[in-house]
């Protein structure tokens, strides 16, 4: 996202065009081709969810990463957008209105924008902790309203719609999931471009200024409150669009979609992916959806793993996945990326050891606490059958974790050295040591 004005001035214009737009062409190609590679129904549903969550987490990161506003209630705009989209679909179907399905997410976006405007006017007056607390309060308020206002929210069961009952264009009725996928992909792509473009606008740049140093921003003519407010509205719009896409995808919206848990998930996605880079939330959305889908199949304790991943990220990689990638970009440019592979590979041993120990510990405890009462103590993990109430698995788990930790501590510095060698050349270690 750094300014390309300087670099753009020199060099081949065709190459420049490729550098600037090439990534979008690749993104579009990937989105088009993906369902041809992963053809199963499960894969398709997963990818639809990814598309929706990419839009939502990018919208969220307009606040968190770009403007430095930590919101605990962004599902409000996603959920309200989704609910309105469901109602819109039902109204259109009932009235046989000449409105095709692909524009329905706009209704969701409008809803997100309107409520972003209303709630933003209140919450963006303050930044920092106060903003975070207000967002939490508003989130809880709307979440509890969603169970009370049954007419609009449908209570516990939520509200359903039928996306195929709309005006059909060119014979596309959006019955099959693949058609919905391409609808979501198209919206996702357009939203990605729009939100990236936003980062390049005067307001988008001032968002970063307000994040970095709100006081100074006021002394160059900008009201930080106004910057936050407008950005909040725009973010609400895109969150609403994501909600509208979700409504189309699931043909159902319920209280979960507007709950604090949903707000938490989008925060996790943005953070795990990396809030400091535009691609971060995209990576985060993809990874978290994958984890949600696969981990929840594999283990009942998947939420715990999810939390552990989040904590690990916060502690050891605050830049998220995007941050880790960016850390290695200079190595790629220097041509020294391969040089660090051996030392990283060595680190895999303690990491895998520690992980195996941790998983054994969690799974055995989980079995013992949740399933043992009904299914008995016998269980199976990594293809090995054992008794969860015998002592051995616990000892093995702790030994693995301890060993992993020990080796990690032992070899960690060597990996760090290898990295800085690759990043700055051999002399850097001496300089570090000299400080």
């Amino acid at each position, binding site marked *: 996202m750094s300014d390309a*004005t*300087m670099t753009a001035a020199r060099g081949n214009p065709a190459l420049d065009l490729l550098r600037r737009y090439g990534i979008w062409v690749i993104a579009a190609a990937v989105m088009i081709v993906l369902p041809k590679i992963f053809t199963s129904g499960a894969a398709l549903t997963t990818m639809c969810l990814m598309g929706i969550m990419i839009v939502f987490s990018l919208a969220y990161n307009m606040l968190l990463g770009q403007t430095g506003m930590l919101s605990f209630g962004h599902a409000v705009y996603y959920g309200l957008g989704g609910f309105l989209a469901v109602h819109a679909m039902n109204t259109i179907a009932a009235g046989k209105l000449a409105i095709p399905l692909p524009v329905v997410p706009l209704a969701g976006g409008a809803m997100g924008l309107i409520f972003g405007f209303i709630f933003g006017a209140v919450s963006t007056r303050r930044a920092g902790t106060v903003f975070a607390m207000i967002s939490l309060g508003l989130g809880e308020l709307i979440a509890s309203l969603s169970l009370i206002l049954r007419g609009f929210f449908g209570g516990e069961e939520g509200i359903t719609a039928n996306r195929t009952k709309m005006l059909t264009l060119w014979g596309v009725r959006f019955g099959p999931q693949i058609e919905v996928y391409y609808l979501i992909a198209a919206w996702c792509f357009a939203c990605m471009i729009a939100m990236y*473009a936003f980062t390049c*606008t*005067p307001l988008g740049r001032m968002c*970063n200024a307000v994040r970095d140093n709100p006081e100074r921003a006021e*002394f*160059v003519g900008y009201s930080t409150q106004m910057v936050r407010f407008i950005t909040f509205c725009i973010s609400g719009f895109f969150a609403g669009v994501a909600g509208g896409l979700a409504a189309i995808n699931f043909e159902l919206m319920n209280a979960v979609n507007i709950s604090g848990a949903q707000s938490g998930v989008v925060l996790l996605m943005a953070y795990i992916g990396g809030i400091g880079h535009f691609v971060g939330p995209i990576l985060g959305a993809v990874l978290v959806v994958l984890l949600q889908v696969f981990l929840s199949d594999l283990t009942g304790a998947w939420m715990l793993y999810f939390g552990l991943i989040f904590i690990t990220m916060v502690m050891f990689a605050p830049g998220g996945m995007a941050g880790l990638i960016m850390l290695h970009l200079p190595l790629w440019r220097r041509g020294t990326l391969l040089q660090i592979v051996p030392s990283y590979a060595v680190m895999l041993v303690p990491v895998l050891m520690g992980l195996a120990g941790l998983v054994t510990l969690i799974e055995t405890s989980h079995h013992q606490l949740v399933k043992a009462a009904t299914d008995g103590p016998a269980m199976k993990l990594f293809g090995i059958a054992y008794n969860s109430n015998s002592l051995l698995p616990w000892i093995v788990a702790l030994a693995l974790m301890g060993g992993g930790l020990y080796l990690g501590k032992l070899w960690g510095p060597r990996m760090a050295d290898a990295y800085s060698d690759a990043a700055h050349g051999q002399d850097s270690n001496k300089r570090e040591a000299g400080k």
Partner: protein
Amino acid sequence: MTALGLHDVHKSFGITPIIRGVSLEVGKGERHAIIGPNGAGKSTLFHLISGRFPLTEGSIRLNGEDITGLKPYQINRRGLSRSFQVTNIFPKMTVFENVRCGVLWHLGYRYSFWHNTRKLKDANDRAMAILQQIGLADRAQLPASFLTYAEQRALEIGITIAGGAEVVMLDEPTAGMSRSETAHFVSLIRKVTEGRTLVMVEHDMGVVFDLADRISVLVYGQIIASDTPANIRNSKAVQEAYLGQALESHGEAEH
């Protein structure tokens, strides 16, 4: 014509009076220095003028218009821009962007989310010209936090003048700089404030007597003298209250 006028300005923090009745007129195009001992309230006075703190009493006019009680951004939009004693930049953004942030509002781009900043030739050219002026053109694409102290001080001034404000206020622009850096800075300040009104807080008497058309001496929240450099130098009251020591230490440093 008065660019900046303070009328009986008071400021107390809690019950402690810090500024105790300051009245001051700075003419258009004038270079005005405010000097005084540590803790006299010079920075506080800057904060009051630029809207960072509300006044306890009194009023401030900018180009004849009352700006008392306005927000910093409103005052900035009316053509008053200030720098900070402690460097106050956008550390994660590039040097170029730091300066462009100072430009955008004043070229009318405001809260636009429909312009692409890469294509804003006027804003980018102006930012680049400022960078050239302050000697940071070759640092343009570096994050601002990577700059040396002196470079950050230069950037601080770059951001301040970028919007083209008529009244520029610099709070100890040369603080903490070496002699050669200071000399460079004085010519820089002279260059970039050409045709503007300058109000400056400065401890280095060499810089003050070199740059200022008029000098005000602030002691314990009150202006005890406001006059030409020559008269200030010869004033008995100023000698006693402040300048005696300041000039002495300045003289010592030179030997």
